[in-house]
């Protein structure tokens, strides 16, 4: 089963993503609400894929992406963020995030993008 880690500071987003992913047959192995935890949990669980919010307290998503990719060059990270953060998205992509999704999130889009990233 594909193991996913969800990083988002909003409880609501995490539970929404979690239920969508679990319905589709993914296993959510970890959840983090800030960049710092995201890095620690990634190292601990080494999930197959990460969904990452960028704007978060305690070390933002950009920093986390950078650190995670440093730790695991093959990390698969998908950015999930709101419109208006385009420069940050581009930065995230340059740090090694593979794709991105714009909030509000449609479950189908999430699954499609995740499938795409996994199939490569």
């Amino acid at each position: 089963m594909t193991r996913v880690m969800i990083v988002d500071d909003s409880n609501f987003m995490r539970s929404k993503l979690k239920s969508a992913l679990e319905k589709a047959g993914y296993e959510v192995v970890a959840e983090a609400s800030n960049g710092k935890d995201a890095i620690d949990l990634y190292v601990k669980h080494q999930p197959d894929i990460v969904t990452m919010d960028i704007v978060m307290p305690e070390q933002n998503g950009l920093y986390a992406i950078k650190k995670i990719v440093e730790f695991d060059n093959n990390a698969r990270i998908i950015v999930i963020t709101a419109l208006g953060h385009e420069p940050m998205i581009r930065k995230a992509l340059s740090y090694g995030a593979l794709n991105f999704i714009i909030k509000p999130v449609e479950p189908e889009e999430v699954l499609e993008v995740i499938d795409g990233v996994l199939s490569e």
Partner: protein
Amino acid sequence: MDPNEWTPWLDDMENMLETAREVLEAIEKKKIPQKQLENMKNVLHSMKGLYDMVGMTDSAKAVAEIEDKVHSEAPNLSDFTKNAFKDLFSKTEAFVEFIRANRPANTDELDETLGLEAVFIKSSQVYLVEIEFSSKKSLKSARALAALNVLKRIAKIRNATPNEDDLMLDANFDTLRVEISSFETMDTLYERLQKLPDVVSVSIEQKETKRSAQKGKQSTSIKIATDDLFTLEQSITQLNAQIEGLKNELETVEGLYKLASIERSFANIEKDLQKLRKVSLNSILNQLPTMAQRLAQAEGKEIQVSLQGRYVSINRILGNTIIDPITQIVRNAIIHGIEYPSERTEKGKDPVGHIAIIGKAERGRVIIEISDDGKGIDEKELTKIAKERGINIKGKSREEVLELIFEEGLTTRKFGKKVAGRGIGLSAAKEKITSIGGTIKVKSEKDKGTTFILELPDPDLLTKNLIIKIRDLYYAIPSSEIEEAVIATPSDIILKDTRSGTMEHNSETLPVFVLRNIIKRSDEEDLQLREKEIVLVCRGRAHKVGLMVDNIVDERLLNVRPLNPILQKYNIFEGVISGIEQDLMLVVNPSGIA
């Protein structure tokens, strides 16, 4: 890595190469025996491992690609694969020699040293991928970057327009064009790209690699800052001058003969450099037809755009300057010139409007004509507006009246519907063209259409100039003459009189000249040194000189024309240019002051 650590690695490589030689012999024959095929697989496998072991992941990847290829094609290997293997062998052989001789401690750049990437590119197929996005402008660049990420994992990206750097800075584009090379079939890639959010269309086309045509002449492109080219050109010009000087001192025929051949080489280098600085009109305007079609569609009009003289080459910087004006003119033609299909049919015209862009090089000038077969500029309307705005047009010729469309804000929406909006941007377009020493003219006939004629200066006459301000007037100084601009305080400068003095700079004593008192426009001389003085340190004739200026405004690429003969006796100026701030600006000659 410790030099001794290389020894076992080299031994393994040697063994592997030994087997590879047998395989190579077999490859030369038509059919590769099963045993050698197995050897080939083993060679590739251990080679991949050996490269991986010393951290050469890119090279290992390239070997893996060839390995995959062998596995999927066996037993009938394609020529591609055979050649790739041969290339890999000779590169590895040379590389092993290199390691044996150098035993480098730092393994960071070894991938590049081996240069296996070339094996990969050479033996794979080249495709042109075009992806169109429907996203908002602000998101487009990010979408394109994500698409590049997808491409990267299945293929090697040879180049992309816009490229990654531009995308990082949020580029303006309609279609992402990427040239890739890959071993993979494109079906999966096509599917993957189509599934990406906001992707409207994907096209993948196999590109002819033209290997036979350019045998042994693989050209690789690198980016060079234009500034570096200028510097290089300057050095060559200087060398040429030195050779000229040498000529007088050389006496033997043989010496002169040798000198002549050196001169020839320099001439060639100069020519090559000029070529580097140029781009074709085609590469500048290749996005234009797509943009035009899209705009026409949005306007409910039908158009056809033709581009002639694609290969007229122009200076790269000049090229960048003219993109906007040309785009503006084409936009105007679509929005205001070309009529709606029904209107055109009524007039007995082809319902499809035509826009032609013609580029040509004539007498050292590049001329670009942009014409449409639309309704033409309404002169009466233009005259009426001019009158309303209090512009005197009495005695003005027809042509001069038409020129009014370049006046800023003359033809905005407030004034009459027929010419509405024609003026938006045309004044800006003219300003841009004028700033590089070009001219823009317009011809128009009612119901026949409008033609804009851009005349651009000989690109090679353009030079970089610093625009400076002295007592409310603008002047230019050739950038090539300036070494640096420094801010000096009164304590750095000792004035001998109101016009000149000396300045301490980098433990050197330079003569300085107070330009505001030398280029004098009134009898009052400014005797007071300011708190902060801007001093341009210039090369000068024999030694450096400092020029004190009031302000630095801008740096521009300009066409310097010679002075009127009457003025030529004033050494302080060496030419004249037309500018934005002022119709005419004098070009200061630093050597002439000293």
